[in-house]
């Protein structure tokens, strides 16, 4: 088989695969609507405010509820938690005037 | 001069195919190392004949060949080409003459591809790819169907007895085999003019004799052949119709040999 045939077939195949993937996204999203709805219900009933992503410290677990100064929260020598501290930066609204 | 009547021979009388009029080629014009390779050369190459350019190295043979083969433009002078086969230029009659010195590159390349087959002194094959691909390379940009080109290439390899190397890399072949690949490559687009630059420089006597045999076959098919060589085996051969002697970029003797 010609090399260009192999190459173009590969590219077209991958392109089609990518296209199918992207095309199916709305379908997948619809399927998970129920799951998102049930999570939304839990949030509503328990009045939750944060995702349970970084459970190692209080201010990483509830970044939206955290004190204004995230460093030194527990102790002056307790520096920012790494790596979650490098992934969740203090939200911008902290810098705005109240 | 008797002309062979086998194969694809054009039906014209013996007419001049390539005409050079006061052609000069200088390199590095205007700089301190300006160098004139070809000086005021006027020449007529006859169709269906074997013409040899004879002279020491540095006499401008190679440069002249590149000018004729549409690979470079002369600094001054004109080169005229009679329409060689119907594939040369679209819309041209066979009897028309065209001045290639003023053609844009695209047409020049088209002519180079279809009308000329060039065999280089150092063969200039592309390393790392197969023999077959090397032979087919000149046909790639023509857009011709691959099946046809493939078939022609295989036939050419057969003619030159190198079919068994079709899928080997060129790096692995012997000198004589490489030259035959170079010759096969020159023929892939069915050119009517074969140009060879010092073809026997890297060959022993036996292989040189074989090469001249191949040239004889081309001549019998009606192709025009132009060879630059200072090898007596070539320019003293019985096949040669005209010997042009060159020195320091000029023609010092232009004779129809025998």
């Amino acid at each position, binding site marked *: 088989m010609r090399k260009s045939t192999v190459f173009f077939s590969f590219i077209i195949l991958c392109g089609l695969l990518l296209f199918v993937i992207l095309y199916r996204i709305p379908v997948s999203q619809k399927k998970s609507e129920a799951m998102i709805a049930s999570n939304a219900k839990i949030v509503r009933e328990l009045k939750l405010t944060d995702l349970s992503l970084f459970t190692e410290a209080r201010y990483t677990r509830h970044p939206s509820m955290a004190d204004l100064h995230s460093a030194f929260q527990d102790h002056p020598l307790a520096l920012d938690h790494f*790596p979650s501290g490098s992934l969740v930066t203090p939200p911008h609204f902290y810098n705005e005037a109240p | 001069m008797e002309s062979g009547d086998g194969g694809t021979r054009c039906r014209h009388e013996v007419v001049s195919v390539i005409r050079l009029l006061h052609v000069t080629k200088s390199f590095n014009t205007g700089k301190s190392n300006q160098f004139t390779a070809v000086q005021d050369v006027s020449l007529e190459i006859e169709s269906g004949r074997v013409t040899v350019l004879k002279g020491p190295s540095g006499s401008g043979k190679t440069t002249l060949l590149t000018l004729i083969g549409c*690979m470079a433009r002369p600094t001054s002078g004109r080169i005229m080409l009679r329409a060689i086969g119907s594939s040369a230029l679209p819309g041209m009659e066979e009897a028309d003459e065209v001045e290639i010195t003023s053609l844009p590159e695209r047409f020049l390349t088209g002519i180079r591809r279809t009308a000329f087959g060039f065999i280089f002194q150092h063969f200039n094959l592309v390393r790392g790819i197969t023999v077959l691909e090397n032979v087919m390379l000149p046909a790639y*940009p023509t857009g011709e169907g691959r099946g046809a080109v493939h078939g022609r290439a295989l036939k050419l390899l057969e003619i030159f007895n190198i079919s068994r190397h079709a899928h080997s890399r060129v790096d692995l072949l012997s000198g004589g085999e490489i030259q035959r690949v170079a010759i096969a490559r020159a023929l892939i687009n069915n050119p009517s003019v074969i140009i060879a630059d010092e073809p026997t420089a890297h060959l022993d006597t036996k292989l040189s004799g074989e090469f001249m045999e191949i040239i004889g076959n081309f001549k019998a098919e009606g192709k025009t052949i132009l060879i630059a060589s200072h090898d007596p085996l070539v320019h003293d051969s019985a096949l040669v119709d005209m010997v042009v002697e060159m020195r320091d970029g000029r023609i010092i003797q232009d004779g129809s040999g025998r």
Partner: protein
Amino acid sequence: MNSSFERHRNIVDFALSSLLRRKAKNLSLLAVYTLIVFVIASIIFFIHALKREAMLVLQNAPDMVVQRLAAGRNDPIPLGYQEKIAAIRGVSGVEPRLWGYYFDAAVGANYTLMASDKQQLEPESVIIGSGVARTRRLAEGDMMAFRAYNGEPTLFQVQSILPYASELVAADLIILSNRDFHALFNFPKGVATDFAVSVRNPRELTTIAAKIVRQFPDTRPILKREILRTYDSIFDWRGGMMIVVVAMAVLSFIIFAWDKATGLSAEERKEIGTLKSIGWETTDVLFLKFWEGSAISLSAFLCGVILAYCHVFFFSASLFEHALKGWAVLYPQFKLTPAVDPYQLAVLFFLTVIPYTVTTIVPSWRAATVEPDAAMRS
């Protein structure tokens, strides 16, 4: 057959033969290129999907949460404030929240404890998140021991486990009744951790918040949009680990392009001269170089993106788990809903394919336009 198409196909054939001449070098280049696209695309997909899900789910968070600060630190809020806040015009409800953290020394995990009387909890029973169940290997009906405020062990029975699908919001949650919460922590009566306030008209949130602060200067209201914006700024490109990853990717692309952009070797130039002498035009040579570059960058992009999609949405971005987990013992296992931002994908395409292709063509330009015999003499 259309001769222009054939011409391109032939040129591609030769471009591929040309690349295959240095199989090891080009294959490893392709592999590394694909890897980088994979990492960047995984990050893009992960962040986009996570943020989208966060937004969708946290839309249901309380309109406003009112905390109280004492000496700059969070302190419980007196229940006495509740009536007065509820009396503000526009407020439709004020509900005290009782919640806190519990550190489980046995496994080293932090849990979030929430008190709620609306969950039909039996006395001394808890509802736990599926992450807690996983970490402590608990099933429904098992007993769970807590250390109370005074160090005494207290037993709770697991009444039910929250669904696996809820890990993203509730992996570390433990829900218990108000009474049990007060008993476990000796939490003072008459105060709550904070208030969840709901308002009738969301546009009046700022005004109401201002009124609350004016009435109770020691409070700090947090609006829902501020809660949502927290999750807008996670994984920001400008900080921390992300910038290291981005810098490494950019550096890699520069290195790839540098190898090409620093001009052609003498061998490559001679080869172009050869091609031109056997009848290849300048455009043919440029197409050849274009396809040499595109073959690698296009393949790398497509493979990298498809692999990244599978990684993030079929394998839950398991390669990122270590980076995200950090020092936490309890890390949620969640499957993200597929979501792709086509704009980001397009940007990635232009960043990965175009510069590399350009740096393959540009150095060849000069060599391609030179007269063939000059190129061959050198």
